[in-house]
């Protein structure tokens, strides 16, 4: 799977290939961890009241990796966790597929939950990744900019 990564560090990557969630979980597991928390963001079949066929992700790849690294480093500083892996898709992601997977391992579950939630919330604010919503009627729009119809 790593061979399919566009740009990556070991634990943070962007890839066109579908995400192997079990593999992501294995990456963070360790004997020292009592908990693994996983967030899976999936493509939803509706957005702003319209029917979605797929999402199509674009990124400023190198900057996106840097921003995710900052978020992960901050999370490791703030919570006692062992490992954090973040994998985000690029390109087309069909309804029901995982577009992003974040796995956090920690000695205790409270920190795993909190750190995992923080990472996805922070990613949605700063990471230069954009999703093009591809609707079932054949039109598409960049999310968050309803006035810009492609």
């Amino acid at each position, binding site marked *: 799977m790593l061979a399919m990564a566009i740009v990556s560090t070991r634990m943070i990557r962007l890839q066109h290939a579908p995400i192997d969630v079990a593999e992501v979980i294995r990456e963070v597991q360790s004997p020292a961890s009592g908990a693994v928390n996983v967030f899976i*963001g999936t493509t939803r079949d509706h957005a702003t009241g319209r029917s979605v066929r797929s999402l199509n992700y674009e990124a400023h790849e190198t900057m996106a990796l840097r921003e995710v690294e900052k978020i992960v480093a901050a999370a490791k500083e703030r919570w006692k966790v062992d490992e954090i892996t973040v994998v*985000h898709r690029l390109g087309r992601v069909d309804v029901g597929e995982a577009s992003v997977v974040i796995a956090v391992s920690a000695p205790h579950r409270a920190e795993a939950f909190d750190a995992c939630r923080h990472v996805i919330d922070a990613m949605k604010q700063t990471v*230069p990744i954009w*999703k093009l919503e591809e609707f079932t009627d054949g039109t598409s729009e960049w999310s968050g*900019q309803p006035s810009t119809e492609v």
Partner: protein
Amino acid sequence: MNVKIRLFASARDLGGFSVRTLALPANATMEHVWKYLFDIDSGFHAWRGSLRFAVNEEYVTGTVNLKDGDEVSVIPPVSGG
């Protein structure tokens, strides 16, 4: 001096290019980049409050002095994650 301008997502659709090298005065700031965008498409005016810029892959705010070789990325509202 020359700076490289990169447009992403909806900004690319509006501006009509992915990457372009721009010749600017030696004391150029981000305002020069804004003016360049407005001249391409006045639609960028409406985006002034929501577009962000990065210089060499770091977000910047306010008045930014550019230097030769800088890469300016035009970052519309993000929607990853």
